[in-house]
């Protein structure tokens, strides 16, 4: 096409097609959010993503590892967006050598990782120095997400603490976290999720990074077993809570908390849709893209997330008696 010659090499075609791999809750909601764009749905059981043209955007929104498919997709000159929180998969994706890639790999465009990184980066703009980032999530999207939640409570949970990774037992470290209403207060525990790894890459100067997820006593005690009953088709209203501690420009201590209360599938799909539209508009740099990265247009991405119906909230604190 004559018009293609004027498009910069790092940008996709004028109207790139979006290929969504997966048929779960997040994938279905993502397809609905992107209804104004050409969207093709692929089954994750198929061996390869077919019918693509260079510059298209592939969203891996299925369960299981994404890393094996990513290299092939990038080699085919496609942008890739992954939606997932598997720790092993994230480590494999972070280890990929994308030095010469002229396409983008957006890693973990979901609620957490994903929205947690964007919110953390936005909150960090109020700080002179950030010392601690603590993320907590409540709820699950579809059955695959629920199974991942179940497994995550039995593995080792990576926590960045004073310059070193510390592996805590999943299901330990109970903390009562206050999520946005209507979720409210939930007991939350350490879990094997990828958010701390990605946040540490995006905020290498931060001394403490942790991630927790809400769980009931039964979840913790049965975490080492297979799920005792099939998960629900979709979890209820979930929530995300991101807390940053540090110092403001005057040196005073500052603690800011923000989050969302939304169906996890909707929030994850909104983040993926925000990155898809940003990729289509050519505002995402090539190579490995982490959601908390300082080089990203975080405000623009958060506005895109809100445009898909996810309402960001901030904790105003409780007034102290005079």
């Amino acid at each position, binding site marked *: 096409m004559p018009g293609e010659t004027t498009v910069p090499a790092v940008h996709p075609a004028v109207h790139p097609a979006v290929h969504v791999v997966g048929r779960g809750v997040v994938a279905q909601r993502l397809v609905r959010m992107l209804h104004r764009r050409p969207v093709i749905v692929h089954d994750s059981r198929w061996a390869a993503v077919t019918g693509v043209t260079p510059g298209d955007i592939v969203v891996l929104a299925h369960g299981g590892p994404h890393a094996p498919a990513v290299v092939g997709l990038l080699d085919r000159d496609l942008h890739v967006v992954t939606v997932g929180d598997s720790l092993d998969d994230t480590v494999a994706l972070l280890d990929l050598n994308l030095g010469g890639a002229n396409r983008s790999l957006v890693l973990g465009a979901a609620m957490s990782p994903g929205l947690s990184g964007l919110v953390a980066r*936005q909150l960090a703009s109020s700080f002179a120095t950030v010392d601690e980032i603590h993320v907590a999530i409540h709820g699950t999207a579809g059955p695959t997400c629920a199974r991942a939640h179940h497994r995550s409570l039995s593995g080792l949970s990576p926590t960045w603490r004073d310059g070193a990774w510390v592996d805590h037992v999943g299901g330990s470290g109970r903390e009562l976290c206050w999520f*946005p*209403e209507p979720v409210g207060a939930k007991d939350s525990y350490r879990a094997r999720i990828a958010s701390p790894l990605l946040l540490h890459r995006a905020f290498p100067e931060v001394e403490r990074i942790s991630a927790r997820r809400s769980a009931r006593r039964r979840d913790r005690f049965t975490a080492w077993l297979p799920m005792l009953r099939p998960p629900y088709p979709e979890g209820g209203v979930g929530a995300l809570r991101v807390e940053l501690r540090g110092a403001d420009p005057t040196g005073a201590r500052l603690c800011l908390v923000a989050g969302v209360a939304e169906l996890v599938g909707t929030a994850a799909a909104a983040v993926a849709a925000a990155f898809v539209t940003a990729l289509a508009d050519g505002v995402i740099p090539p190579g490995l893209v982490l959601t908390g990265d300082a080089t990203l247009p975080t*405000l623009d991405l958060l*506005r895109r997330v*809100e445009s898909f119906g996810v309402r960001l909230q901030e*904790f*105003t604190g*409780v007034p102290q008696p005079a």
Partner: protein
Amino acid sequence: MKLFRRILAVLMMAGVAAAGIRIRGSGGVPPQHGGWRPLELPPDRR
């Protein structure tokens, strides 16, 4: 019978103690202000 009376006595004492705490205890008034509000994103300066 002796065991039964002892158990009954313990339960009664526990009930009296719980009622005392319930009636006389003061946990204070929960916060009436604060909480969550919509996050206003700053204007784009680009």
